[in-house]
C-alpha cells in the first residue's frame, strides 16, 4: 500500500466536509479529486475510468423524467385527490398519504415526492388544527422506506444496482416483502404512539365543515395551474414504458441507465418541452457529487485501502454468514444515519465484493443487507437522508420548526424496528438459501 496516506487524508477530509456541510457536496468531492490530480496521485485518464457512467445515466434519466412529470402537474393532481379522499380523517391522512409517498418514492425519487407531499399535508393538517410535525416526519420516514423497494427508489439502490449489475426485478423480488412489513410496522408504531391524535372527526360537524373549506382551498392552491391532459398522458405513458423496460431488463438486455436516458429523450421529443428550462431542473450538483465520489473511492480501491479495510475491519467478524450479513446490515444502518448514505454505499461496494470473495453468500443476500441498511438507516436522524433534510426545510418554510430531537424521537425507534425486521428477513432468507 504505497502512497496511500494522501488519498486517505483527502478522502477523510471530504467526508468531514460532507458530514458537517462545510461546503457544497459536489464541490467537496471534486475538490478532493482535484487535489489528488494536482498531487499526481492519479492521472486524469485513470480518474475518468473510475466514474460509473451507468449510475450517472440512470440518475440523469430519472431526474429528467421526474422534472417533466412535475411540470405536467401529475404530482399535484395525485396529492390533491388523496387529500380529498381523506376527508380530513387524521388516520386516513396518515395512511393514504403514506401509501402515495411510498409508491412515488419507490418509482420516482424521494426528494421530489416529499417536495410535493409535504406542503399539502402541512396545509391540510395545520388547517385542521392537527400537529403537522408528526405528519411531516412520518412522510420523510415513509419515503425512505418506500424508496428501498426498487432499484430506482433510492440513490444507494441505484449505485448498488448499477455497480453490481443487479436488475430491477431482483430488487423488487427481494426487497418488496421486507419493505412492506417495515412500512406497516412504521405506520402501526406512529399510530400506536399517537393514538389520541388520530381520533375520528365525523362526530364534529364544525370540523367536517372546515375540512370541506380546507379542501377547496387546497384545490385552489395546488391545482390552479391548467393541466395539459395530452402532456400529462405522454408523461405517464413514458413512465409506464420505463417501468416495463426496467421489469423486462433480462429480456431486452437494456441496462436501467440506458432505459432511463432513452425514455427521458423520448419525453423531451414528444412533449416538445423547453429543454433548456428542463435542464435547469436537473440536480447537476448531485451528479457531480456522484462523479467525484466514484473517483475518490476508485483511487482508494486502486491503492489497496478498500481491501485493507475489508480485511482488517469487516472480515474480522469471522466467516459465519449470519454474522457477516448482520454486520453489513447494522453497520450500514447506523453509519447511514449519521453520514450521507451515498458516499457510504460507494465506499462499501468494493468492500462487500471482497467480503463475498472470501465468504460467498448466496442469492445476493449481502447486497440486500447493504441496500436495506443504507436505505433504512437514513431514517435514524434528520441528516441521514436527503428526503429528511428536504422535508424539514419545507416544514420550516411553512412555519413548522422540527428540531433534531423532534425528528429523532420518532425516527430512532422506527429505524431500529425496521432494521430488526430486515435482520429477521435476511436471516430467514439466508437460512433457506444455505
Amino acid at each position: 500500500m504505497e502512497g496511500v496516506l494522501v488519498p486517505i487524508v483527502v478522502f477523510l477530509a471530504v467526508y468531514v466536509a460532507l458530514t458537517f456541510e462545510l461546503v457544497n457536496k459536489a464541490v467537496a468531492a471534486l475538490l478532493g479529486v482535484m487535489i489528488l490530480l494536482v498531487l499526481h496521485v492519479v492521472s486524469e485518464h485513470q480518474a475518468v475510468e473510475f466514474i460509473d457512467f451507468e449510475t450517472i445515466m440512470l440518475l440523469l434519466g430519472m431526474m429528467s423524467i421526474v422534472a417533466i412529470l412535475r411540470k405536467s402537474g401529475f404530482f399535484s393532481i395525485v396529492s390533491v385527490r388523496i387529500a380529498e379522499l381523506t376527508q380530513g380523517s387524521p388516520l386516513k391522512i396518515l395512511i393514504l398519504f403514506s401509501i402515495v409517498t411510498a409508491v412515488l418514492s419507490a418509482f420516482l425519487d424521494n426528494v421530489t415526492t416529499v417536495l410535493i407531499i409535504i406542503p399539502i399535508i402541512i396545509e391540510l393538517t395545520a388547517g385542521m388544527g392537527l400537529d403537522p410535525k408528526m405528519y411531516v416526519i412520518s412522510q420523510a420516514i415513509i419515503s425512505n422506506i418506500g424508496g428501498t423497494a426498487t432499484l430506482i427508489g433510492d440513490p444507494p439502490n441505484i449505485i448498488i444496482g448499477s455497480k453490481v449489475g443487479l436488475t430491477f426485478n431482483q430488487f423488487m423480488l427481494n426487497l418488496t416483502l421486507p419493505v412492506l412489513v417495515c412500512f406497516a410496522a412504521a405506520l402501526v408504531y406512529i399510530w400506536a404512539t399517537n393514538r389520541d391524535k388520530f381520533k375520528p372527526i365525523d362526530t364534529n360537524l364544525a370540523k367536517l365543515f372546515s375540512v370541506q373549506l380546507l379542501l377547496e382551498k387546497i384545490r385552489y392552491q395546488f391545482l390552479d395551474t391548467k393541466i395539459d391532459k395530452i402532456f400529462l398522458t405522454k408523461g405517464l405513458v413514458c413512465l409506464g414504458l420505463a417501468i416495463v423496460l426496467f421489469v423486462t431488463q433480462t429480456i431486452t438486455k437494456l441496462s436501467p441507465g440506458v432505459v432511463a436516458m432513452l425514455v427521458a429523450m423520448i419525453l423531451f421529443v414528444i412533449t416538445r418541452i423547453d429543454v433548456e428550462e428542463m435542464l435547469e431542473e436537473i440536480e447537476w450538483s448531485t451528479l457531480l457529487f456522484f462523479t467525484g465520489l466514484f473517483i475518490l473511492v476508485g483511487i482508494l480501491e486502486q491503492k489497496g485501502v478498500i481491501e485493507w479495510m475489508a480485511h482488517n475491519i469487516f472480515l474480522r467478524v469471522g466467516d459465519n454468514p449470519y454474522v457477516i450479513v448482520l454486520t453489513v446490515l447494522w453497520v450500514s444502518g447506523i453509519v447511514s444515519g449519521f453520514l450521507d448514505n451515498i458516499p457510504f454505499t460507494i465506499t462499501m461496494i468494493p468492500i462487500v465484493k471482497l467480503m463475498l470473495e472470501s465468504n460467498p453468500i448466496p442469492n445476493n443476500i449481502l447486497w440486500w443487507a447493504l441496500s436495506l441498511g443504507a436505505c433504512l438507516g437514513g431514517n435514524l436522524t434528520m441528516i441521514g437522508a436527503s428526503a429528511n433534510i428536504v422535508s424539514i426545510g419545507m416544514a420550516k418554510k411553512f412555519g413548522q420548526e422540527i428540531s433534531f430531537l423532534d425528528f429523532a424521537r420518532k425516527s430512532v425507534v422506527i429505524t431500529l424496528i425496521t432494521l430488526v425486521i430486515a435482520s429477521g428477513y435476511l436471516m430467514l432468507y439466508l437460512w433457506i438459501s444455505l
Partner: protein
Amino acid sequence: MKTEDKEILCSLIRDHEDTIGSSRVTMMAIKAFIESIKQVRCSVEEVRELYLELSEAIKNTEPKVIPLIHLIEEFEKEIGEAPDESIDQIKDKAIQILEAKHHKIITKTGKVIEHGLTCISEGDVIIVHTISYDVTNMLKLARETLQKTFKVIVLKQDLAKTRRLIKSLSAAGIDMEIIPEYSLSHYIEQGNKVFMGALSITDDMKVISAIGSANIVSLCHLSNLPVYLFANTLKFSHRHSSQQRIHRKVESKTHGDVSFQLITHSHDTVDLKHVDFLVTEDGIKDKAAISEFIKAPRS
C-alpha cells in the same frame, strides 16, 4: 366548539373571501355545510345543537360574510324543532333547505350578472379592482357570449388575490392591462367606468369591500369616473359598518435595523355616496335611488 376550531373556521372563510369574493364563498360554504351534514355521525338529540353551534360560528366570522349569514339565519328558522323525526329525516330536511339556499344565491347572483351585462358597452375601458365573482363572470360573459369588445384595467393587489381574475379574463380573451393599484393615477384618463364588488352594504350607507378599494373609488369619484357597484340584496346588512367585524391583524416586522408592528385590515369601508350605480338582482339603481332602495323593507 373550541376557540381554536372557531379561529380555523374563521380564517378559512376569510381566506376564501379574500381570493374568490363573498358570493362564491357563500356558495362554497353552503355546499360545505351540506357535505358535512352528510358525513356527520350524531344522535337526534345532538343534531340540532350541532347545527346551531356551526351556524353560530359561521355568523361570527371576522369579517362577517353577510350573504352567508342571511342564508344561515333563514336555515335556522326553517329547520325548526322536529322531535318525532329520525336522524336521517332531519339530515335530509337540512340538506334540502340548504340546497334551496344554494339555489337562491346562485339565482340572485345570476340576475345581478344579467343586469350587469347591460352596463358594458362596446369600446369601454373598465377599471376593476375587487375580486368579485359577479364582476368576473359578467366580464367573461360579455366577451364570450355577447362578443363585446372592451378593455379591462386590472389593478393588481397581492398576486395571490389577483391571479385568478387575470387568469379568468385572459382565458376569455379579454383585452387587459395589469397595473399596480397605486399606479392608477397614470391610467385614470384611459378608463371610462369602474366596476366593484362588495362584501356587504351596511345600514349606515357604507360598502365593505376589498382592501385598497376606498382609495381607488375616491380617486375615480374625484375624476368623475362612474362607479358601478355589483351586489345582490343578500349583501345588505341591517347593522352599522362598525359592527361588520373587519379583521384587524397586527404583525411584528423587522426590516434591516428597524423593527415595528404592522397593522392591516381585511377590508375597506367605502362611502356609498361615491357609488354612481348599484346593480342588484332587482335591476340598476342610480345614485339618487340607491339610498331609498337599500332602506326599503325586504322579506
